[in-house]
């Protein structure tokens, strides 16, 4: 949806659909997985029908998330290749967090943090997929030593992934004008110029003025 003829296209409908598929299945997998992780999360069983249903459904939510993420990887990996500027950006992430992002190195469609997040999530998804299959007693029978190891890997990686996703979600709430990119697929020119100036220049041919 363009609210202004000057808005810039950032995501196609297909890209938004796959991202929401990953997001929703991740949340469902996370909530159902946490039930099994610690009894403090037991109330989440109410969301899934019963405790046994939670156990039955979790691996399917997980598989859906993993497949959707792998599909998204095929789609997006090129855009997430790290460059030297990205590492420089990451080296100065303190300034960003501090709220003065005006002098940060200029970023393309994705900044160094987003790219790093993408690769970490890809590694995490693969680890969750393999360890999850080892834990899945409804269909698979792995040697018990491997299952024990997989349980540690699965719960540790899940915790890290949930943490990364919390940071990801928070970043989109903190940086105003971001969430609409995932709703409507468009962003304002000012948003693009401030946060992804190289991308802004590339698609508008404008913005060559020095950053203040």
């Amino acid at each position, binding site marked *: 949806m363009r609210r202004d003829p*000057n808005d810039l296209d950032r995501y196609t409908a297909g890209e938004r659909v796959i991202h929401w598929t990953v997001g929703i299945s991740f949340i469902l997998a996370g909530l159902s997985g946490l*039930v*099994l*992780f*610690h*009894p*403090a999360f*037991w109330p989440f069983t109410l969301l899934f029908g019963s*405790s*046994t249903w*939670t*156990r*039955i459904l979790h691996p399917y939510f997980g598989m859906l998330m993993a497949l959707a993420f792998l599909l998204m990887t095929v789609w997006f990996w090129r855009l997430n290749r790290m460059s030297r500027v990205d590492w420089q950006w990451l080296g100065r992430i303190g300034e960003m*967090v*501090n*709220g003065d*992002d005006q002098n940060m190195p200029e970023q393309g469609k994705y900044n160094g943090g987003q790219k790093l997040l993408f690769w970490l999530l890809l590694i995490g998804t693969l680890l969750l997929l393999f360890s999850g299959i080892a834990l899945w*007693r*409804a269909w698979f029978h792995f040697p*018990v*030593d491997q*299952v*024990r*190891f997989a*349980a*540690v890997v699965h*719960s*540790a990686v*899940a*915790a890290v992934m*949930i*943490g990364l996703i*919390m*940071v990801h979600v*928070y970043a989109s*709430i*903190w*940086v*105003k*004008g971001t969430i609409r990119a995932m709703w409507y697929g468009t962003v*304002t*020119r*000012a*948003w693009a*110029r*401030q946060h992804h100036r190289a991308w802004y220049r590339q698609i*508008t041919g*404008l*913005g060559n*003025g020095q950053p*203040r």
Partner: protein
Amino acid sequence: MAWQSLDIQRRSATTTPMPGARQGNEVAKLIDISQCIGCKACQVACMEWNDLRSAVGACTGVYDNPLDLDSNAWTVMRFTEMENNGRLEWLIRKDGCMHCQDPGCLKACPAPGAIVQYTNGIVEFHQEHCIGCGYCVTGCPFNIPRLSEKDHKAYKCSLCSDRVAVGQSPACVKTCPTGALHFGSKEAMKDHADHRIADLKSRGFQNAGLYDPPGVGGTHVMYVLQHADHPEWYSGLPQDPKISPWIGIWKGLAKPLAIGTMAAISLASLFHYIIKGPNAISKETEKEVEDETRS
């Protein structure tokens, strides 16, 4: 709790203390392998008392039948033939839950109340709370619990907790025709084992001994072994069973670490927002962009 004999001392996925005013008396079953003749009367008694019927198996050329524990076979006799100093020995071990004092199954179980341990030491599965994840199988150092193919709940020997609660011995013990199985307080069983071990030693079994492995806090099912120095000769009875360190990390360190991290990230995000404020586009940038776009 209704019955003192069923007071609970441990409950799966429960983080607060169990009622602890009363002290239970620890019980134990003693399996004297040197007196077992492998007749399987105990297997039959177990099926009968617990109303379990495993599928009829096929003869595979060995005495073991059924070949393995399953959700309907809570105890099986495992037969090992071996030659020792030129003599044939037939080592017959009645396999089943050992009722560990520190049960790995209960530690691993994520469902509150699906596994309990009574103050008398018996470890029992309450299938109505079981969600069928199989974590107990992952946690058990003796490879005992089995998921049912039919209802996907986990099953294992209950040490006839229902009989024990009313002062009866387990069905297998009641049935054993040779007196190889004994049941009573753990102390009494250890005393009885001492006599048996002394007897075996006097008959030339120098390494006879009691199997009550300390790695799991001792067990409420103990064996008298002719060769206590080689438990693995008895169909792979573990030498020094312990809850795997992976289970320790998974059920120990990982929980506070993960929950603490998730809580810290949520709080840090909230405070970051209210301290630094949103990262919004400045009016100047908006103006610059407008000018640029128009030009």
